[in-house]
């Protein structure tokens, strides 16, 4: 063990600090040595000088040597007392990366916990939306009306436009295929069945999840961050009853309506292509459309949209209420909610398709 003495100049600042740091004396320090910072000459030290001392202490400690100082007086001594914690301890090491097995376990636990939370929220939401009002436990009808306006009436234009354009596109694609067989008129049937069963429900749900699902998460998450949720709970009000139930009922009412609008819009899109490009008379195209339209198909689309509505509101609220970490967290949760929404929409749709394949055909 050797003792290294580092003498500090009369004035310790950005330049002189750098000079002693870059001096060879620190390179010579070996493991187990001791470093003594001699401050007896120093009468003035500025913050940068102090920072160089901390840098030096870190470098010495990295070599597993110890550091101490002596001879300080006056202003230097007082400043040294203030910055002593920074000179002495190491910064706490950042958390260790978990191993592979640990990660798998962690993810499993998280998924199970989240699934449970979602299920609890589902039960709660259904109770407060569909049962509690009949038990006389109150429902915020005024809020419900506002939500219907926000989620529904304001979304009509975009829903119509998206479905119309999709109808146009599908007609375009399928006409190109069917024309070779001279069966272009069947495009009308294809559009009706496609939109009634799948496309209108999915397209509308995607539009609504981006509009409404994201809004629900952002709103709830901001309420958590600003302690509004705590305020509600503190007043003895039920968050599900107060916030989620009106939204859920509103979307359950609104999403089938929007889906129906979507079906009409899609069919109109197809009709435009059929009449203006393929050159059919509107009457013929309409007859073909009506002949193919069946309550069975339309019912499938509308039924699905109810489940989409449930998924959008639950995923939105769930993610909003789980937010952690201020403004950044709000953004992260909103992203997560929209991704989960679209994923769930596709999963629910697939389940329905499988179910109907084996039952109705």
């Amino acid at each position: 063990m050797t003792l290294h003495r580092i003498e500090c100049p009369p004035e310790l600042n950005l330049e002189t600090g750098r000079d002693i740091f870059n001096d060879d004396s620190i390179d010579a320090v070996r493991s187990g040595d001791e470093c003594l910072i001699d401050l007896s000459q120093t009468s003035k030290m500025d913050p940068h000088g102090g920072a160089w001392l901390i840098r030096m202490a870190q470098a010495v400690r990295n070599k597993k040597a110890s550091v101490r100082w002596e001879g300080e007086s006056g202003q230097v001594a007082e400043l040294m007392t203030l910055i002593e914690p920074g000179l002495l301890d190491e910064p706490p090491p950042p958390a260790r990366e978990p191993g592979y097995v640990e990660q798998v376990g962690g993810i499993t636990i998280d998924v199970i916990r989240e699934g449970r939370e979602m299920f609890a929220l589902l039960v709660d939401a259904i109770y407060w939306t569909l049962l509690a009002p009949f038990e006389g436990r109150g429902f915020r009808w005024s809020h419900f009306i506002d939500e219907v306006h926000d989620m529904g009436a304001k979304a009509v234009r975009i829903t119509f436009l998206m479905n119309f354009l999709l109808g146009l596109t599908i007609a375009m694609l399928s006409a190109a295929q069917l024309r070779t067989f001279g069966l272009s008129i069947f495009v009308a049937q294809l559009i009706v069945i496609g939109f009634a069963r799948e496309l209108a429900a999915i397209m509308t749900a995607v539009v609504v999840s981006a509009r409404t699902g994201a809004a629900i998460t952002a709103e709830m998450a901001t309420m958590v961050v600003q302690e509004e949720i705590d305020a509600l709970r503190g007043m003895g009000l039920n968050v599900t009853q107060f916030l989620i139930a009106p939204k859920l009922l509103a979307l359950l009412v609104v999403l089938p309506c929007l889906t129906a609008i979507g079906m009409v819009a899609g069919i109109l899109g197809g009709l435009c292509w059929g009449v203006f490009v393929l050159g059919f008379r509107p009457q013929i195209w309409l007859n073909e459309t009506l002949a193919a339209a069946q309550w069975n198909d339309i019912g499938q689309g509308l039924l699905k949209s109810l489940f989409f509505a449930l998924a959008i509101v639950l995923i939105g609220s769930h993610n909003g209420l789980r937010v952690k970490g201020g403004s950044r967290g709000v953004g992260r949760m909103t992203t997560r909610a929209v991704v989960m929404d679209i994923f769930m929409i596709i999963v629910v749709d697939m389940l329905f398709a499988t179910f109907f394949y084996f039952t109705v055909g």
Partner: protein
Amino acid sequence: MPAHEPIIRVENLDTHYGDKQILDDVSCEIARGEIFVVLGGSGCGKTTLLKHMTGLLSPTSGGIYINGQNIADLSEDELARMKQGIGIAFQSGGLFNSMTVGENVALPLREYRLVDSQLIPAIVRMKLSLVGLVDAENLLPDALSGGMRKRAGLARALAADPPVVFFDEPSAGLDPIMASGLDELILELRRLLGVTFVIVTHELDSIRAVADRILMLDKGRVLFQGSVAEAESSGIDRVQQFFERRPDTHIAQRNL
């Protein structure tokens, strides 16, 4: 620049929010190394005055001179450079939630590029040990208590060693031990590093402990300017009332 030139001079400042006049003919001078406290009841324009001094708002009329230069005459770049010479510690910290405490303190250093990047971690540790938060370096702000956030905000304000630090409500919402500790820290920083402090507060104990001079505002006008002792013996009723914590009659009546 002559040494006696005040570091901040406010001249006949008038300001409005919409039609409502917030500050009415406010003038004051803040000397180098001084601890200057702006006080007054809630809604008297304290925070607005602070925002003017830091260039966040521009006045209807009147001027603000920092180091003898009118900030209204500065270009955007010059204003940004001027702001590097001031530190602002916000009421609830104003920390970026997405960064750790250490990254928050390092941010102005990295952005201003005034020092060696290899020295930045050491500066961060030093500023955090000044405010007693060395162990919180790798924590996120939402893991901190209110008092810790405030101190972390002060550490960030001090990061680039600005000659002036503005501090909005240093002791509001803190327990008495923490509040007096923070007062002590302000005095120490002034003594050791020569930092000028402009503090907005209405905590009486804190004002008595740190203030060299005070500026008292009432409804946007300057009510009093001078030392705490002068204020207490000034004979201006409103000032007396403030220091004696005497309530207004109408609130007293309402409480009865």
